[in-house]
Structures are given as C-alpha cells and as structure tokens.
C-alpha cells in the first residue's frame, strides 16, 4: 500500500492530536499538583499555628510560676533550700 496525500494528512492529524493530548494531560496533572500543593501548604500553615499555640500553652502550663503555685497549693510542696537536696555526681566514662 502506498501512502497518498490523505494518508499523510491523517497521519499528521493523528500526530497533532497525540501531542495535544500529551500537553493537555501534563497541564491537567500540573494543575492538580498545584491544587494539592496549595492544600498541603494550607495544612502546614495550620499545623505550624497549632504547634505554636500548643508550645505557648505548654510553656505557660509548665512555667515555674504556674507549676510552682500548683505544687504548693495542691501537693503542699515548697521550693527546696540547697540543704534539702543533693547533687549526685554522674560517673565519668573512666570511672564506670
């Protein structure tokens, strides 16, 4: 079978359609990726904000003033004087 003019036209048309389909698919994928990226960015922003809020709450809750007050009021503890605790010496690698 010999290629005639209309065959060539068909072939070129198919080629064009193929290339166009690939371009379209790539653009669609890129758009989808961009959307997903935006969603992830938003989520990260929200998580960062949440982390900062939690850190602040932790800092306030575990702060010396708050914790000391609770320990005094609820448990009857007090800030120890230096005579009330002992600093133990950790063994150094040479002395283990």
């Amino acid at each position: 079978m010999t290629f005639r003019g209309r065959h060539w036209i068909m072939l070129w048309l198919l080629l064009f359609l193929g290339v166009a389909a690939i371009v379209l698919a790539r653009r669609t994928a890129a758009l989808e990726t961009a959307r997903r990226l935006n969603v992830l960015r938003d989520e990260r922003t929200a998580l960062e904000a949440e982390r900062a809020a939690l850190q602040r709450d932790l800092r306030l809750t575990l702060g010396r003033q708050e914790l000391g007050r609770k320990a005094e009021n609820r448990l009857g503890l007090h800030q120890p004087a230096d005579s009330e605790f002992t600093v133990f010496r950790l063994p150094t690698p040479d002395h283990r």
Partner: protein
Amino acid sequence: MAKVTTRIASLEVVFVLAVLAVLGRAAQLQIVQRSQWESEAEEQRKLHLVLPARRGGIYDRSGVALAITQEYFHVGIAPTEVEGRSATINAVARSLELPASRLRRDFAKNPKWIYYHGPFTGVQVQALRKVPGIHLTPEFARHYPAGALARSVIGGLNADSGNGASGIELALDSILTGLPGEEVVLRDRAGRRYESPSRLVSDPVPGEDVYLTLDAELQEIAEHGLDDAIERLKAAGGDVVFMDPSTGELLAIASRRRVDQDLIGNRPSFFTDPFEPGSTAKLFTAAALLSLHRVDSTDEVYGEEGKWSMPGRTKPITDAHTTHGNLTLAKAIEVSSNIAMAKFSQRLSASEQYDALRDFGFGSPTGVEFPSEARGRLPTPDQWKPGYNGPSVAMGYAFGVTPVQLAAAYGALANDGVLLTPTLIREIRGPDGKVRYRHKPEPVRRAVRREVVRTLREYLAGAVGEGGTGERAQLVNYTLMGKTGTAQRFEGGHYVTGSYTASFAALFPADDPQLVVIVKIDDPKGDYYGGATAAPVTRGMLQEALATRRSAIDRRRLATSEAPATSDTASRVEPEAETSVVLPWPLSADSTKARDRRPVPNVVGANLRKAAVALHRRGFQVALRGGGLVVRTSPAAGDSLTAGGTVTVWAQ
C-alpha cells in the same frame, strides 16, 4: 492600451509599496521594537508577585522559642459570592470566635465586602478555606510564645516596616530578615489570575535563626525573683544579671521599674542605666592598691569609730557597720568600711585609680550585641577634684556603671583576671540548620594579675563569711563569695536623703565560679542595706537555680564545690577531678577550644583513607607519614586531644 498598462504598472507599484510598508512596519514591530512590545505583552499577561521571606526565630540557649514568625490571615467576605448566608455566618462565627449577631448585623447592611482584620491563625481559618465567598489574605507576623519572658532583651518590630525596632530584633535585623522571593502568575485581559501553577522566579530565603545565651528557666527565676523582691521591699525597681564568667555569656538579665504601682519590664536598664555601685566597687580600688603594691596584708588604718571628717570634704564619711580599732584592707572589704577605703585610696594617684577602673571595663561600653548600650560614667582624672573624687570612687561613688559592666568586671575576678566581652548571642543558624556563627570567648584585656585575683577572692569570701556584710547570701551546702553595696541615690543633681540603691555582686560557687550574679534593688523601703535586701534575694535565686531540672549550672563541676562537710549530704559526695574552665592568658589561637578535648580513635591497621576519615569525623587534623596501613598514631589511640588538633599518622 498604454494607458491601461500604465495604470496596471501604477497599481503594481502602489501594491508593492503597500506590501513594503506593511513589511517595513512588521519589521519595525518584530525586529526593531521587539523587546519593547514583548515586555509590554508580558506585563499584560503576567503578574509578578513578591513572596515574603519568613523572619528568623529567636531562641534561648537550649532551643526554647522566644520569638518566631507565623503566617496569620485577614478574612474578607464577598456577600454576593456566598452560598447559604446563614451557614456561612455560623461557620465564620465558629471559626473566628466572633459573635454571630455581629456578623448578621454586618451582612444586613448589604455591603459589597465585609472585612475582619484579625489577624487569625492558620488553625482558625482552616475550616473557612473552602467556603465560597470567603477570601483569606495571608501575612507574616511576629509571635512571642514565651510571652513577656526576656522581652526587653528580645525587643520588638516596627509595626509599619516589619523591621527590628529595638533589642535583639534591631541589633540583628539584617541577619533575622530573609530575602524575599518572586513568582509569576498568568492573568487574563481583565487582570484576573488564571488558576494555573505559578512560575517561581526565585525562592524566598528565610532569615537566620538566632540562639541567645539566655537560659529560659534561669531567666524566669531572675524575673520572678526580682518581681517578688521589689514587691516585698516596696522598691522602685531593680535589675538582675546572671553571667557565665568563663565565656562572658549572659544567662539571664531582668529589669523592672515601678510605674504607677505596676511593675514594667520593658526597659533594658541593665544595659542602659548607669548607677553608682557603692561598696560593690570597693574591690576595684583594692585591686589597684594590691597591683601597685601600695598595701600589704598587715597594713592598717584607723577606723575612726565609724565617723571621719576628712580634710577637704564638707560632709563626714560614715560607716554603716561601726568597727573599733584599726582595719586591714581585707577587713575593710569584709565590713565594707568607707573610712578605711577612703584612707587607703590616698595611696593612689587619680590616674592610678582611674586606670584600674578602666582596666575592669568601666567608662566604656562592654561591646555586648545590644543597641544603645550605655558606657557608664567615669570622669577622666583631669576632672577629678583633689581629695574628693579619689575617696568617693574608692567608696563606689562619683562614677556610674551599668549592671552588665559590673557583671563583666566581677567575671574577670572569676576568670583569673581576664576581662571578657559579655555576649547575648550563642549561635546563629542558617535556614538549613547549619551553624553560621558560634560564640567564642572574647578577651578584652587582663584587668589584674592572677595573684592579685587570688587575694581579692579571699576578700570576697570574707565579705560573705561570718560577720561579713553579705552573710545573708550564704547557702548551706554550697559556698559563694560576693560583696554588698548600698549607695545613696543621686537624682536630679543631688543625693536624695533616705533613698538608696542596694546591690550584691556574687561569684557562685566560690571555688570554681560558674555564675556571676548581680542583684540591684532601687530605693528599697525599710532595711535598705545591700546585705539585708539584695543578698538574700541572690541566695533565693541561686537556691531555685540549683533545684531546677535543667539549669545552666554544671552539676558535675558543682559536685566538687559543696561547702566542706557542713552536712551529711555534703560528705556523701566524693570530690571529682578538676575541670578547668579558665582561659589561659595570653590567649593562643586555639586556646578557646581548650575545654573541647576528645579521645583519639584507634585507627591502627586501617588504610590511610579510612583512618583519615575517622580522624576527621572526630574533628582532628591529620598529618600523614608514609603509605599503606596505619601502624601508629601520635597521640596514641585513647589519648585525649583538643578538637582541631593534629594527629600524626604513620603508615607502612
């Protein structure tokens, strides 16, 4: 016919000219003006957006966040785009914690646009992202997770420019500020953005993170300790400085002023406000007397029973703690005798006294990384009135020091006489986490000889011993040394009767100081002496610092510093090998690394490449001798060597 031919020819010429004109114009547009039209088209089609860079964070020495930059949002609502007004109102009210009634009122006005400035956090607006008609405008804003902790040091940002306005935020603005990025998005004829992936021209580069020398826990102890003291003593304000004398690192700095019955902590007076140090400065005159051999341990002066009218002075010099008989220099420091110090100071010339104070850093800024640090006040000898300034300076009057200057000067006494530059910056890390800068101790000068320091430290120990003015600072199981100070306040050009600055300067623990502590209380009421006010405050803060789970105090070194067998607990702790933290002087190039010693790994039998890699990983330099397999190293495996030191490797 000729006429027709002529006409045709004319038409052809016109046609050709027209074609040439079109081609010429096309060439002009396409070739000559190409770039101009191209850029104009680009401008119409593309939108350049600036991507703001996140400002670097500020952390304490162990990574506790003190200032971070977070993305916040402003919320806009386009009522015409809203689907389901009631549901939207409820969603917005719930998320932004706004009253629904307010939103309903705003909607009832039928505006084109409703705006809520906020700013709201990412958590708050997360549920609103997909609600039609709601538009979020992001913005970076500074957040201080630790609240008011160390705010006078951290400083703040300019509300308009977002640049540093005060404190560390200002001093390190160029480091904290990042580099904005740029992206391009496509838009249509109406200027609306296409929903298409943007093209990134350049990524924003976040600012670098700054790790301060401050210890958040110690800072909290200092701030609350100072608050309590000011409240208890009904004082006008105060300052506290904790410094590591071996590095010059400021571990905690607090400042409070009473304004209309409220305690305000936003003024960094530890850097900016000089005060007359009173007796805490007697030690520096003593340093000059000892350095110049004008006094020996047996020299005595008469104490004048606590009151002395010095020739040439209008007011008599008095001692708060009256002593009978003669006083040595050691005793004069111990009981804080103004009269004895005034008498001893007469053995020094004005320039000798001045030089001693200059050597300890008074009268010039310490060089700490803080904007607007004060230099203090130290008149040059030519401004001294004979017979007045010398004795006054010996008593701690007639010159002004900032609390940080005083801490640095006492740090020199802890550091074998070497004055170091105090610092607030421990480390700077890039956005990739790599360390860009790490603080190394910066010696300024040797302020005083080592043997003189030993004597001065004995004096300091005496001042907090039994009968000393600082006795009430002493702990039970650990010893400290220090000096009290009580100075009449100089305000509005004259000394105010009944108004004093009480202070205490301490080195803790006494035998191997890890901390310099300066406590200053302004105008305390009642028993105003430094020994009765600032000294017990110091003791309380040190007790709290000792009891913390994670504190700046090195417990391994502390175990050797307990007071000798004062209790059962003390006797249970065995002494440990000494760990030197004192810098040698003069300072060699690598001497700042002296503390970072590590064992040499065993590379015998390995090939040269592997041996070199192993040694480099441990932080050593490698010098090669021969080739093949390693047969020995110098220093040998297991020996310790300073990081950065050279290990010689022999191979066969």
